[in-house]
């Protein structure tokens, strides 16, 4: 946000303890009662988006107590990073939040790049911006599709996956795999765009807004959708900030906070796009926020394609970047650098950094501590799903159990990222 936008944003206190249930926001104890039953909702339930376990206390059909429990896909990512050299950590990053893989990589790569103070060429920045937005569309499409499945509507899911496949095709063409691409490397991106990319991406930018129009026709006016989503899981701006929500969940409550504007990274300061906000902060606004954000992402992709600067895609830094392949046959020095970088990695001087990107789910941050060695001493990720899922209890209590599904779905948590 620029200074002027700050002024127009609602002035809200940063912390209002009274609105956050204590001691654990993700838990609301049920009242004493005779006819209450406590059931496990998940961890293996199709509508919990992975393996979220909700311990629900019910009075008839109404949720009166709720405890959101996580940790079922904890795979020790952060610890794994500590066992690998910095370079070998890159393929690990996208596997946390498997829907926002590119944003995860950007956070990790960006953090390391700031520690080693490497200059990323202009073109690489633009390519990264382009793919970050493609990735946002990918993630939001899955969200929109599954939100239909939760209500028992399967068509929207198929329509969304159809477009998602086109995003993945673009990823495959450029990066070599459909997800988990390790495309951003320290100092730039792994390869330049292929020649055919422009035309295909242009076609994508032309088609996808038309498709989003269709989704909105299906969803926005649909009375079932409205009845199920309107007024469910409402959270006002002050509470949303106090609970640490970010991304579309926060913007749906009317707070125009977007890291792409607030702290522009990559090439976002050169892009012209709007920040989509909601008004009421309910599940419907969150749904709409994400859907309309896809229009903005397409706008950014289009600008990237049109304004893409030419030049190298990789920094010329022999201490941290693998030398170009053709030099391996001709230059002994390059070969030695190559051996050293692959086997031992580069050393990073003792320092620490916190670097954030706007992932489709909100503020995704990477906190990295280096002790001077070739491996991170400690790495921690701020996972937006982890933070947003703690508002589940507040949003769902005293509502019907069916609304609980809508609440969990509308927060768009990815358990792989929450548990890491």
């Amino acid at each position, binding site marked *: 946000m620029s200074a002027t936008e700050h002024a127009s944003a609602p002035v809200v206190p940063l912390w209002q303890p009274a609105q956050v249930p204590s001691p654990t926001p993700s838990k609301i104890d049920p009242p004493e009662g005779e006819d209450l039953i406590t059931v496990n909702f998940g961890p293996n339930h199709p509508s919990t988006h992975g393996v979220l376990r909700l311990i629900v206390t019910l009075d008839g059909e109404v949720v009166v107590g709720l405890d959101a429990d996580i940790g079922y896909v904890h795979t020790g990512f952060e610890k794994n990073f500590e066992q690998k050299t910095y370079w070998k950590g890159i393929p690990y990053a996208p596997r946390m939040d498997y829907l926002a893989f590119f944003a995860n990589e950007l956070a990790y790569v960006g953090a390391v790049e700031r520690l080693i103070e490497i200059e990323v060429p202009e073109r690489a920045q633009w390519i990264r911006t382009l793919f970050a937005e493609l990735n946002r569309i990918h993630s939001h499409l899955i969200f929109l599709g599954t939100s239909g499945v939760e209500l028992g509507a399967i068509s929207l899911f198929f329509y969304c996956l159809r477009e998602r496949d086109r995003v993945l095709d673009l990823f495959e063409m450029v990066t070599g795999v459909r997800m988990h691409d*390790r495309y951003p490397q320290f100092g730039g991106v792994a390869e330049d*765009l*292929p020649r055919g*990319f422009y035309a295909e991406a242009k076609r994508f930018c032309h088609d996808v807004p038309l498709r989003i129009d269709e989704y909105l026709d299906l969803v926005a006016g649909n*009375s079932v959708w409205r009845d199920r989503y309107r007024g469910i899981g409402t959270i006002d701006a002050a509470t949303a900030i106090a609970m640490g929500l970010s991304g579309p969940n926060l913007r749906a409550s009317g707070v125009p906070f977007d890291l792409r504007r607030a702290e522009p990274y990559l090439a976002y300061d050169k892009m012209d796009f709007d920040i989509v906000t909601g008004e009421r902060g309910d599940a419907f606004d969150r749904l709409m926020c994400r859907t309309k954000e896809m229009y903005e992402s397409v706008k950014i992709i289009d600008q990237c394609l049109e304004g893409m600067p030419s030049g190298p895609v990789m920094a010329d830094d022999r201490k941290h970047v693998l030398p170009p392949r053709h030099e391996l046959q001709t230059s002994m020095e390059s070969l030695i650098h190559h051996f050293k970088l692959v*086997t031992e990695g580069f050393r990073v001087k003792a320092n620490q950094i916190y670097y954030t990107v706007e992932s489709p789910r909100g503020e995704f941050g990477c906190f990295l501590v280096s002790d001077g060695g070739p491996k991170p001493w400690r790495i921690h990720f701020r996972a937006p799903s982890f933070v947003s899922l703690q508002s589940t209890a507040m949003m769902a209590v005293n509502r019907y159990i069916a609304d609980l599904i809508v609440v969990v779905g509308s927060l768009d948590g990815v358990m792989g990222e929450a548990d890491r």
Partner: protein
Amino acid sequence: MSPVTDNLKGFSVTFRHLFRKPVTQQFPEYKRPVYPRFRGRHRLHRHENGLEKCVGCSLCAAACPADCIRVVAAENTPEERYSPGERYARIYEINMSRCIFCGYCELACPFDAITLGHDYELAEMSRDALVYTKQMLLEPGPEARRTPVAPVDPYDIPAQEDGPA
């Protein structure tokens, strides 16, 4: 807008889809060509004279983030020569059930001995069968040659060789 017209708008979307061509691809019968950069089953390569390019330096094993490559090197002798260098890979194994297809081995190999091919149909009935030996990687069987690939131009040639994208 009334709920009735709004709902009809939604129905018109699903109705229009009746007349669109399905996008489904009948997978085992039809295989969409993968893009040339696609990373699939690994290949080990030979020089034109038949010697193996791999010299058993283990750099790929060092680069592998999943630790799934095992290389045991041995000395070439005049009687038994496998590679042009001093040493060759006596054992070269990739555990495909661990591989994450990151392509770091390809990046790491200084001699272009290992590359990632395009084949993705790697399912097996037992885990043991997923540990690929040097022989399997040097001479992939007929099952590994069925993947169609899209043309290299325009899908692999960098955009900037003839001006900006």
